[in-house]
């Protein structure tokens, strides 16, 4: 059963289209992330689900109830959608204490006083903030404000929790820590969560599924692994990480466990790559190779490779755990990552290979 269902949802501002034709079904207990660069429409989509923004086309349903359908002139205001939301600025009300902030959703619902106290204390325990209950809200640190915002969103046990870039105002270390804490909390409570971020590491680490968006359109919906290793188009491949993309022609293709294995021929190299569909001989494709999947060929002979290259090191960046190495192969450049203990210098001749199953072919037409 889909807890949140979007059908062809769009939003235009005059002539400008912010979001276009989004179809999405969010399952119960799922952690789903909208990922994309700023201005891609991810926040607008979240706000349309919240009811803070009206969709101009399509339908939004929450728990099998239509909450917005402009065609039928139907709109349920945000306060009647029973959702919890955490804002990027946290939106902690400065004229209330921590306790009052968290109690607000319950008091609005006219819950009995004793029940309010019990529930607020429970949720403050959950985020380990009970000792700060009487603190005026402006006296909190960024991380504490973020916890209070989460507590406020959870306190009335909403069916869906919405989060709009909740970690982006924190520093890097705290961001990782808060992200992990939040993921654990989410799994413990089993609450359906919609999350907006532009940070791909965050999206990978937290999500069950990721919705990649660009220019108001959904590019791909899938698990973090699918998004990373099996992107459906070049835009997704290039947004997540910085892969090598090599132009090539298909020589032949064959079934391989529900995917297809292609023999491809590039400029001065050839080998195999996996793809999601079959191609006819002579068709152009893009072959995506992630830098960490390029390995140095040792003295032992390598077996089961997709591709092999021989090139000269032209650039070398030390990054602590790894070296980022650029090698020139014929007319193109490849980047690869090597353990930083490797001995390598500019001008070295390197033999590198791509292990079988890690080169991924995409439609060449989708380039751009």
């Amino acid at each position, binding site marked *: 059963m889909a807890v949140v269902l979007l059908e062809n949802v769009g939003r235009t501002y005059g002539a400008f289209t912010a979001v276009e034709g989004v179809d999405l079904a969010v399952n119960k207990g799922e952690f789903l992330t909208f990922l994309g660069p700023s201005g891609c429409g991810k926040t607008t989509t979240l706000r349309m689900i919240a009811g803070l923004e009206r969709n101009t086309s399509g339908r939004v349903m929450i728990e099998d109830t239509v909450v917005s359908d402009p065609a039928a002139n139907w709109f349920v205001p945000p*306060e009647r959608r029973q959702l919890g939301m955490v804002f990027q600025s946290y939106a*902690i*009300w*400065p004229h209330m204490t921590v306790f009052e902030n968290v109690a607000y959703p319950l008091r*609005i619902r006219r819950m009995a006083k004793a029940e309010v106290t019990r529930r607020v204390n429970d949720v403050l325990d959950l985020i380990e903030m009970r000792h700060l209950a009487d603190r005026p809200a402006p006296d909190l640190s960024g991380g504490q404000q973020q916890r209070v915002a989460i507590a*406020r969103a959870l306190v*009335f046990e909403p069916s869906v929790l919405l989060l709009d870039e909740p970690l982006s105002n924190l520093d890097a270390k705290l961001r990782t820590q808060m992200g992990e804490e939040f993921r654990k909390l989410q799994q413990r409570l089993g609450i359906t969560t919609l999350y907006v971020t532009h940070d791909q590491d965050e999206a990978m680490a937290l999500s069950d599924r990721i919705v990649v968006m660009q220019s108001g359109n959904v590019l791909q919906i899938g698990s973090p692994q699918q998004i990373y290793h099996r992107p459906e188009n070049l835009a997704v491949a290039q947004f997540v990480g910085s892969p090598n993309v090599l132009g090539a022609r298909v020589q032949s293709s064959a079934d391989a466990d529900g995917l297809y294995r292609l023999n491809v021929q590039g400029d001065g190299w050839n080998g195999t790559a996996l793809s999601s569909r079959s191609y006819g001989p002579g068709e152009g494709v893009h072959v995506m190779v992630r830098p960490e999947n390029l390995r140095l060929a040792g003295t032992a002979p390598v077996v089961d490779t997709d591709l092999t290259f021989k090139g000269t090191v032209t650039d070398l960046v030390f990054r602590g755990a790894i070296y980022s190495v650029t090698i020139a192969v014929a007319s193109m450049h490849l980047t690869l990552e090597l353990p930083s203990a490797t001995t390598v210098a500019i001008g070295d001749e390197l033999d590198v290979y791509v292990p079988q199953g890690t080169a991924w072919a995409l439609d060449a037409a989708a380039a751009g």
Partner: protein
Amino acid sequence: MSSAPDLRSDNLSPRRIASVRTTVFDRFASSPAGRVVGMLLLTAALLFLAAYPLSMLLYGSMFTAQPGLSGTFDLSGYGRLFTAHNIAILGNTVQIALVSTGVSITLAVLLAWILARTDTPFRGPLEVLITLPFFIPPFLTAMAWGMLGNPQIGVINMVWRWMTGTDGTIINVYSYFGIIWHMAQYSTVFLFLFIVDAFRAMDPSLEESSRMSGASAFSTFFRITFMLMLPVITACWLLSFIRGVEAFESALFFGLPAGIDVVTTEIYKAITQNSVPDYQFATAMSFAILVLMSLLILLRWRLLRGKNYQTVTGKGYNPRIMRLGPFRWVSFGFCLLFFFLTVVLPIGQLVVGSLFKFFGFYDLKMLTFDHYLAVFRNGELWRAARNTGLLAIGGATATMILGSIVAYVTIRTTWRGRRIIELLAWLPWMMPGIVLGLGFLWAFAMLPGPIPIYGTIWALLLAYMALGTPISVRIMAGAYGQLSYDIEECSRVHGANWWQTLWRILIALTWPSFAVGWVLAFFGIMRELSASILLYSVGNEVLSVVMLRMWTDGKLEQVCVIGLIMMLLIIVFRWVQHALLNRRISGLA
């Protein structure tokens, strides 16, 4: 409203951190001698503008004779304050100020909410129209309303009699009602300008998260929006009350003829309407009102302490707009009605009044342009217009330069003595115009012979500067406060020296605020009456004083002509300001 978030410091922190860092100015002025000389000059100028007239007021209140004559010292001036009559005057003053504040704050919140947060049609033009009264001198609208609401021959009463066929009187502006109505018109617009910004600058997610927590739009307004605005509204309430106590024109035009006295008109009467001006009583009363003012200001500080919620985090927000449905035409009508009552009616009266031979006799046969001719042939008027123009341009420029320097020193340096400078520059704020005028009257008269300020146009200029400085400092402090220190430092790091940084970065970024402040100071001088009336001398009259004299002489028709010309000037000026500045200011000012 697009804004420039990257120019503002620390826009992510929910509370702006008031850290004081060393600036390039510090390093520039690191030569101690130069800095000390500069600070001494600035302090001396401010002492002369603020502290000197204040101390002369105290001196005058204990001196039995007029300035310059020989007398003795006693406390009889203060003794004479404690009469039943004076207590009643104080009661009147407080009562009028309270009622007009109540009326205007309600109107201002309503108007600000309509224009900032609803989908009322034509909000942009409405806002310009509604704020127009702010730029019209109060004595002009007072004169217009004096004619409109005249109980015998006022247009409103005549229209009423014509419509009903009776001979009743529905409005008499020479009454408590008249004073309060006139005062409320001004303070509504004044408060509106404060409140509308607070409504706009609020982080909309504070309200959105309330909606997401299950609160309705109505409930959110009272529990969140209104509560967050409460500090601003309290501050405005006190500000409006203080201005109500200081108000002069409303009580002068409508109270004096009706025998309703307030503190400011009582001071005015003591000096101008006695055969021998009673300076001691007037200064004692002035000093007493100053004490009352400072108590109110202390109260304001107490109330606001720790209540500054900083809902303004420096981002360019798109405030949440509420859909009113068909009611949006009701709110539109309400705004239009306010504009009609405060601008169209008075201007209409001036137009009509200027074209008929005698005020109150509206017969087509009486149409004439004689009054225009009379005005253009009046040499005294031309002189007054020239004086006013010169004083307004020169005074506004001088006030803003002084204000910019004071604001820079207090906001962006860590020099010793900057707190004293801040306090001195703010001191005139609690002095009503008539009190400041009286203080300067004494101050100039007590200057040693070779400094001939008394009886010259410089007396007016200095008084105007003193009156305008607190506002100019505030505006410029606001402008500097929005610039992060990085902006100055970055310029220095990239090779600009202090002067280049000042010119290319600071001035380039703050000139829109400077221009706004200049326009405010300009109109402040144009409308000034209460201090001018004590400090002008023959040959150095300003328009407001001349018009008041013509009004009391009964030349109402010519007053209408001058009023119209001033109004035209104001509208042109406002339009130019709007057209030239608004685009650039929106982000910064």
